[in-house]
């Protein structure tokens, strides 16, 4: 099996690479590339994302044919894709970080700044927070409810259809920490930095 981590200059993806390689050992081939043919022929794709919504969308668009290839992979071929952090946020129609920016539109919704209640809550939301699993999901197979995951973000994904939400976490409000729609999986937290539980979630995605 081939799992491809999309390398589109979206900031630091070395931790994502290290964690997938750790979980995959020698059983699964982990590719790190922006080569469209390799993405097309892979079984699963990981879309990381660091920095702002706008900078990630711009970086995706700057690689000719990449967005079309991802659309084809996800929409036509219905193959599994995991979005991490801004990778998840880009599933939305629109994001408001830096300036209003069009997303991939895979799951209807928007990405807005977390309401910090006039400074009552610090932003970014940095650190370990418990997740409340609200929907049965294969990526949460053998994961205990209230497990701790590592978060770093100031913006949140707000999907229109709440039934796509698979887990939330409590901060200034209930924040969506993972969404799932058919073959699309997205996590707001960083499984690659969430210790053993995070590696288990990565393993669950690889074993889908």
């Amino acid at each position, binding site marked *: 099996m081939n799992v491809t981590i999309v390398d589109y200059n979206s*900031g*630091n993806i*070395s*931790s994502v690479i*290290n*964690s997938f390689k*750790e979980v995959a050992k020698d059983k699964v081939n982990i590719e790190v590339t922006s080569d469209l043919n390799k993405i097309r022929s892979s079984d699963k794709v990981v879309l990381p994302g*660091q*920095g*702002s919504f706008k*900078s990630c969308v711009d970086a995706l668009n700057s690689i000719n044919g990449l967005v079309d290839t991802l659309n084809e992979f996800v929409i036509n071929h219905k193959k599994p894709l995991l979005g991490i952090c801004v990778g998840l946020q880009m599933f939305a129609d629109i994001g408001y970080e830096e300036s209003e920016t069009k997303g991939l539109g895979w799951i209807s919704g928007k990405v807005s700044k977390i309401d*910090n209640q006039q*400074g009552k809550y*610090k*932003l*970014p*939301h*940095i*650190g*370990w*927070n*418990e997740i409340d699993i609200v929907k049965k999901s294969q990526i949460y197979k053998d994961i205990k409810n209230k497990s*701790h995951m*590592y*978060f*770093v*973000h*100031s913006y949140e994904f707000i999907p229109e259809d709440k039934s796509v939400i698979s887990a939330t976490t*409590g*901060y200034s409000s209930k924040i969506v920490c993972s969404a799932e729609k058919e073959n699309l999986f997205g996590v707001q937290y960083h499984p*690659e*930095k*969430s*210790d*053993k539980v*995070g*590696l288990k979630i990565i393993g669950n995605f690889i074993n889908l």
Partner: protein
Amino acid sequence: MLKKRIIPCLDVKNGRVVKGINFVDLKDAGDPVEQAKIYSDGGADEICFLDITASNENRDTIYDVVERTSKKCFVPLTVGGGVRSIEDISRLLNCGADKVSINTAAVQNSAVVIESSKKFGSQCIVIAIDAKLNGDKWEVFTHGGRNNTNIDAIEFAKKMEDSGAGELLVTSMDRDGTQVGYDINLMSKISSKVNIPLIASGGVGNLDHLVDGIKLGKASAVLAASIFHFGKHSVQEAKEYLDSKGIPVRI
């Protein structure tokens, strides 16, 4: 609920772990990668490396340490010490650091903070502020605590937030290495002034100091070196103690 973080810090010189008392009298205590792995297995919420390598020819040792650590530890890794330019930040991140902490360069040229937070995202830019009380105000020191800039630490903290810093790592120079506890006044004054998380550092001698840093100092995270490093307490013990005092921690 967001948990308070415990961050063991390892001072690294020429690729080896050391910890100074008031930044002098260094004791060698092992391999940073192995130490970091022990900490992450023991429940550390993050690992921090402070590179105190003085000579330029040995500066590359930290990249190797970071690269090896990031293949073994799957919790956030912050690296600081001698980070001067966008290139330094980029190289550390590429080696597997999740955040970099910037001290002297941020004071000398805040454009580095503005540019790097735009380029890499605020989430990986930590500004390390070394502060010392002078009369009734805290002043910012640079170059590992050797140079007084006379800049007001609280105003500087606000300026760093406005420049795009994601977190502040605040060290009391008066307390560092003394084991008498964090400078609570300094921590709470800065934490109240900014809306980004504050990591308290400098002066931890026992587990109650960690509690004070969070409860009184209003820190989001507490950093300590020697109490963990020489086996006085494990990270797990520290967490259980905080939990017993009603502080939310990841156990």
